[in-house]
Structure formats: C-alpha cells, structure tokens
C-alpha cells in the first residue's frame, strides 16, 4: 500500500484510527479459526458510518480489497485478512442508537456485543433471541455477516429472522438502506441476502433488530441416556408428539467429560445427555414438560432433572456453552466442525463417525443442536505428533462429506469463510454457484469486499459498463474473466 494511501486513511480516521505498525497489526492476522493467518497491509478502526464510507471509497478507487471484522470470534476464517488488503475493524461502532419497546425494535451499530442487546432491554422483559455460544463477546455485525444461530434457533430462528433493516456501505462506497422498521418494504429482500453473506457484499453500519418479549416461564430438562441413539429416539418422539421446544441439545460422553472437567456442570455421567428447554405460559409449559418427561423415560432415560431456578438453568447451560473450549481439558488440540444433517439421520451418522474414529485412532466428541440436526463434532488431536493434524483435518472433512451425502449442509451457523470454501462445490452444482455469483456481481462487481471467501474458486464478473479495469486477481493470474 502506498504511503499516500496510508496517509489518506490516517486523515480520514485520525491518529488513533489507523494501525500500521507490524507488531500491532499482527493482532488482526486471524479470527477464531487460528490455523489460517494473513497479515493485512493496514487495519482501520472507524467510529462512524461516514468513516467506513470514506475508507471504502478509497479502497474502491485504489482497488484495495478489504475485510470487515467484528470481535474476531468467527470459526470459519470469515474475518481472515486478504494479502495486500486492509481490515476494517468495527469494534468502536458500539452505540445502541434507538430502543423502541412498544414496537419491539432496537437499532444498533455493528460493534455492539450480542449480549449487550439483551442487557439493554432485559429490565423491560425483552431479550434478543439469537444466542451463539460466543454471545458475551461476539458482535452484532459479525452475527449479521455469518447469520449466527445458537441453541434457541430451533424455536426463535436465526439472526436473519431478527434483522428488520440494514444500513450498508456497498463495496463502491455508496450507502444504502435495506428493509426498515416496518415489514415488507417494496422491492427485493436485499437484507435477506445480505445477512449471512459473510462480508462479501458490503459492510453493515446500522442494524435494526427485532427483540422478543420474555416468555412467562422457562424450564430446562436434563435427561441421561445410555447412548446418543436412545437420546435421538427421544427427540423424534418429542417432535412426533407435536412439540416445538425452544432448544434441544445433545452431548455424548466425551463431551460431557470435557464439560465436567472445565465447568463442573454436575452432568450425569452417561452415554448421551439430552437437554430440552420449553418456554411459554406456565400452564402450557407444565403440561408439555410432563409429556417430554414421559417420552424420555419411554426411550430409556435413567435420570431426569428439571432445572427450576434461573441459577440451576444457568449451570445446565454453562456446561453446554463451554463445551468447545472445554475440549482443551482433554486434548491439546481440536477442530470444531459445523455440519448439518436431516435430524433423522443422526443414529446413522454417529455410527459412521465412530467407525472413522476407530479407523484413524482420533477421538471425536459430539455436541449437537439435536432439534435441527446441527452437529458440532470436535476432532481431538495432538499437533506435536507428526501427521496427526493432517489426519484430523481429513477426518473432519470426511464428516462434512457424510453430511452432504445425507442431504445436509457443510455449515449450520459458523459460515463457509476460508475454511470450507473448497467444500462448496461438493454441496452445490456449478449452475447453483454461478447463480450465487450473479448476486455477488450485482453488489460488488470488482470483488473487493472480503474476496477469496465462501466460493471455491475465484471468478470474474462480466464486463461492467465503462472503462475496463483489470482486477487484482486477474493481474495476479489467479482468475480469468469470462
């Protein structure tokens, strides 16, 4: 990056808004997926939409690729910098701009932390529903980019369900509004496409969210089974009985052991642990909870506990939410995977994963959002043992292939990012990817916004009217125009 460009960025952002010293810049070389690292040319920390817009205008003029970053907790490398590009960190844009309780809306900047949204409205008995496990540190902007889920999306939906409107700086530097405080704005559902686009379509600078009234009561049932298969049969029973719990989570024995070692959640030591949460009016929940209890017992549950107080519930959830980090207690290294299967394929894929584990000699712990078939297999390995990291990566990829074979997906909530882009062509056919690429070309014909992510190989957009401009990828010889 030229000294003139750096100077221009410094003028836009002020002395504290630009990071270009090699030591400081290294902080931004990766996100939550630490095995990919790229040092960017510069990092900017804007504190307003105006500054974001001015920075993006410079990037557009100079053809500099940029990557937006929230809290950097992403698990697929979505915020991995691009070589020669800049990182636009949005952590300083953390104002809550408007709270409208009668209409259950809240307007926030992208750097606001997920849990702070609930914190702001909790006194009025509202909450913000999407609850990724990282919710105490991850940002709304990052949630929007990844369409984050969480345990409660079975009932409440994903980030996209709760985003009503967006102010976005497009990759050419223009500022546009998608959706709004009211529903069904005229035109295409651009907000619907933007959410989950992993930073490839622009940068959200203002987000209108829906908040939800707290249910009258919440009850969490913990049931111990001998195996995940028995627990899975109980889940089928619950769904067949016409119930839609707020959350259904499952952990296998290895995951339970890790969670116990890490946070002492006091889980029963069993082969398959089920956590079922119901919420709603007390009379409704009481009636349904009795039914869930009965279904669990019929399917072999030998211990059932119902958390009554908020403190008991918090402890139950603490073990589950800490499950990824807890793997550090039982293994020096591990890969967090994020596949999805039709829920009924659970017993089959579990036995296949077990078989792979035996074949490779690598342990796999399993944590699932059992209600919606979202698996988080954790492949445990030791980097110090030659070849084990590669073997773990291969095993983890094989699990995703199994998910695709069963009609599922390579990612339920972590995103494709850098990590899984090569898997996209296994899940989608070429015309499918080409069609998604048309969206990319409408938003970002020069492909400056988080290029190199999501899609398996670089591809150019058709000729855009006006002067021919060679794309950086084209110049570098890694993409061709067609």
């Amino acid at each position, binding site marked *: 990056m030229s000294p003139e460009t750096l100077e221009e960025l410094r003028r836009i952002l002020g002395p504290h808004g630009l990071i270009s010293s090699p030591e400081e810049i290294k902080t931004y070389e990766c996100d939550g997926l630490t095995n990919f690292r790229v040092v960017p040319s510069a990092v900017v920390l804007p504190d307003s939409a105006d500054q974001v817009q001015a920075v993006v205008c410079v990037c557009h003029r100079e053809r500099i690729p940029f990557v937006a970053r929230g809290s950097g907790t992403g698990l697929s490398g979505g915020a991995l910098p691009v070589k020669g590009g800049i990182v636009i960190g949005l952590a300083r844009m953390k104002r809550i701009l408007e709270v409208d309780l009668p209409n259950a809306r809240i307007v926030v900047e992208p750097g606001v932390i997920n849990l702070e949204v609930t914190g702001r409205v909790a006194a009025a008995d509202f909450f913000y529903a999407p609850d990724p496990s990282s919710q105490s540190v991850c940002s709304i902007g990052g949630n929007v980019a990844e369409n984050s889920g969480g345990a409660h999306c079975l009932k409440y939906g994903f980030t996209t369900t709760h985003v009503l409107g967006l102010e976005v700086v497009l990759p050419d530097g223009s500022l546009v509004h998608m959706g709004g405080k009211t529903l069904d704005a005229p035109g295409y559902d*651009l907000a619907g496409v933007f959410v989950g686009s992993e930073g490839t379509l622009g940068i959200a600078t203002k987000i209108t969210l829906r908040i939800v*009234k707290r249910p009258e009561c919440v009850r969490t049932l913990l049931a111990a089974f001998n195996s995940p298969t028995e627990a899975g049969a109980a889940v089928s029973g619950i*769904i*067949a009985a*016409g119930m839609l719990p707020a959350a259904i989570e499952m952990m296998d024995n290895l995951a339970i052991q890790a969670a116990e070692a890490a946070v002492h959640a006091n889980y029963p030591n069993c082969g398959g642990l089920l956590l079922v949460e119901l919420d709603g009016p007390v009379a409704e929940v009481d009636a349904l909870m009795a039914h869930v209890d009965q279904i669990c017992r019929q399917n072999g549950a030998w211990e059932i506990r119902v958390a009554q107080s908020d403190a008991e519930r918090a402890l139950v959830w603490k073990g589950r939410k800490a499950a990824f980090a807890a793997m550090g207690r039982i293994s020096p290294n591990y890969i967090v995977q994020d596949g999805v299967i039709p829920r*009924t394929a659970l017993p089959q894929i579990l036995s296949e994963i077990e078989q792979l584990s035996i074949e490779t000699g690598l342990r796999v712990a399993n944590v699932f959002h059992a209600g919606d078939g979202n698996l988080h297999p954790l492949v445990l390995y030791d980097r110090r043992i030659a070849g084990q990291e590669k073997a773990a990566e291969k095993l983890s990829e094989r699990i995703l292939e199994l998910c695709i074979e069963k009609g599922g*997906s390579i990612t339920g909530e972590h995103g494709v990012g850098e990590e899984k882009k090569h898997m996209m062509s296994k899940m989608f056919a070429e015309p499918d990817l080409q069609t*998604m690429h048309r*969206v990319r070309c*409408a938003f970002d014909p020069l492909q400056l916004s988080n290029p190199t992510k999501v899609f398996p190989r670089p591809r150019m957009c058709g000729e855009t009217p006006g002067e021919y401009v060679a794309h950086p990828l084209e110049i570098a010889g890694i993409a061709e125009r067609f």
Partner: protein
Amino acid sequence: MSAGEWFGATVVEPADENETASILRSANDTGQAVIPAGGGTKLDWGNPPRKADILLSVRRMNRVIEHAWADLTVTVEAGCTIAELQRTLAEHGQRLAVDPLWPERATVGGILATNDSGALRLAFGALRDLIIGVTLVLADGTIAMSGGKVVKNVAGYDLPKLATGSLGTLGVITRAVFRLHPLPRNARTLTIAATDANDMQRIILAILGARLAVTAVQVRPGNEVDVLLEGTEDGIAAQEAVIREIGTVREGSPAVWKAREELWGDAPIVKFTTLPSRISAASAAFSRFVIQATGIGYAQFRGDLQGLRETMEQDGGSLAVLGKSDVDAWGNAGDALPLMRAVKTQFDPKKTLNPGRFVGGI
C-alpha cells in the same frame, strides 16, 4: 405445450424443470416476454407488464415430493396448491404455518413470488422465515438450487429469501423446501370489542407486550380485535384469563381469519405497512380493512392513492396497490433501487421475465 391464450399471450404448461428451462431459454433468445403463473389468483398484482408473449404456468408441476415429517420439512413443487399441500402435511399432524389468500387455488410458487402470508406471521414469521430451499429457473435456462433441505444452513447466499417476494422477475420458482410446524392441539379465537380507536391501539400493544404466546392478532372495522390462541387446553385457558384483564372478550369465530379475502370486490385493494404502535392511526384512512398486529394491513380504498401513500411513507411505512390502478403499484423503493436493478440485470439482463411489473420499472 401450448395450452391456450391469456390476454393474447400463449399459455404454456411445462411438465418439469427441464421443459421450463427450454421454454425460457428460447423466449430469452427470441426476445419474448414471459409471465410466470401459479394458480392465477394474483396475476393482476404489480404493474401491468410492458410486454406479455408467454404465460408460463407451473400448475402441472404440483407434486409434494417429500414430506420428511420427522425432520419437520417438506419439498414441494411450485404448482401445488396450498390447500393440497396442507392436506398432505396434516396426515402427519403438521402444517406450513402460513395462511395466505385463497389457499384452494393459490400455489406454492405464487405465494412465494408475491410474498403472501397472513396473520399467522406474528407467531411463525413470514414465508422468508419458513422457506429453506428453492429451485429457480433463470431466464437463460439455468436451473439453480439454493439453500437445502435442512432447517439450519448458512452455506452460500440465501437465494430462497431473494426469490421470495420478487414477483417472478428473477427466475421461475419450480420447487421449494419449507420448515414445518406441528398442527396445534387446540385453537380458540377470541374477539375483543374495543370502545374506540385509542382503546383498540391500547389492546393491541397490551397483548403484544404481555408475556403470552398468542398465534395471531388482527383488527377489523368497528375496533374489533381478534386473537388466536393455540396450544394445550390449560395453556389456552391461562392465556385467555390474561386477555380478559385487557378487554371485554367474547368467543370469536374461526371465520374471522378469512376477513382479508372478503375485502376483494370492486374497489382497489391496498397493502400497507406501519408500526404496531401506529395501527389505529393507519386505520383511520379506511372503512373496510384488516390490519395484522405485525403492522401489515389490507384495505379497500377509493380516493387519492398517491396522497395516502405519501402519508404512509412519511410515517415510515409503505403502500402497495394489489390489482389494477392508475398509480404505480409499489411506491418508493428507497436508495437501494439501483442495487435492485443491478440484481435484476445479473439474473435477467434481457428483461424476459415479467418486464415492468416490479418496483422502479424492474
């Protein structure tokens, strides 16, 4: 494949996606405009097309391909009527949780293209929240799938949402995958007669603000507020007790949820959007209307449509005309209109599909 004529356009009814693709490809190559259609109940929505050479009906593609009831999903072809789909799903005690207009005739493809859900949206979200996969045939014959058949999936761009509400201007929807919900164990409709518009507004906000789990709320003329409760008998009774504290309740008829259909007659029908807290203010402009608690209203209106639209837009909402009128059907699409045009250009550069029917001349 020709099956007749529609206002001078040739009607074609392809049997599958490949036939759909070849019809579109040839129309696209020869400069013919294509109007996609399902049950034909909303063909007059949007602006009149600038050109209409072929009416492409998806009615022959009407199978329920897979009801994976244990996974709470269904894969269905675009020409299946909503009523037929619901009958199939009910065999396993499930439903697609939407209540669109004219379900006996309206099709899956049609309600998606026009984004027509109903009062159930309060509890279950709109079609955008229920669709998890889509197959689109583009104007150049490309057959593209997006999303999938699992409820939770963030791989690739969310084209099911882009297709929903795009009025057939980006591609022909041939297949969709939805997430499903269980049929309710019991349902009860309550009607509250508010004393005036202010009281009606108070009642709506009180119900939305209470810690209840109501399924639908709507307002009708005479300040009547309908509430739909679903669940266990105990749960419904407990919620009814809370609602009785809010207003004077009488047992309502399930037929009130069809009130939206009854608006259609001679007068132009508008769909308007407002904030839940502005429902009573919005209702003042109409004598026959249904307004859902999500802030979406439908009404008959004879008068200055443009003036009414400006009032709604100034209040942060919007107003679309559903059917023939002498004003633009859509109103102001805001500063994202150039981006919408760019999306259209990428998907349908020759403007083969529904030319001119959508916002901003798209």
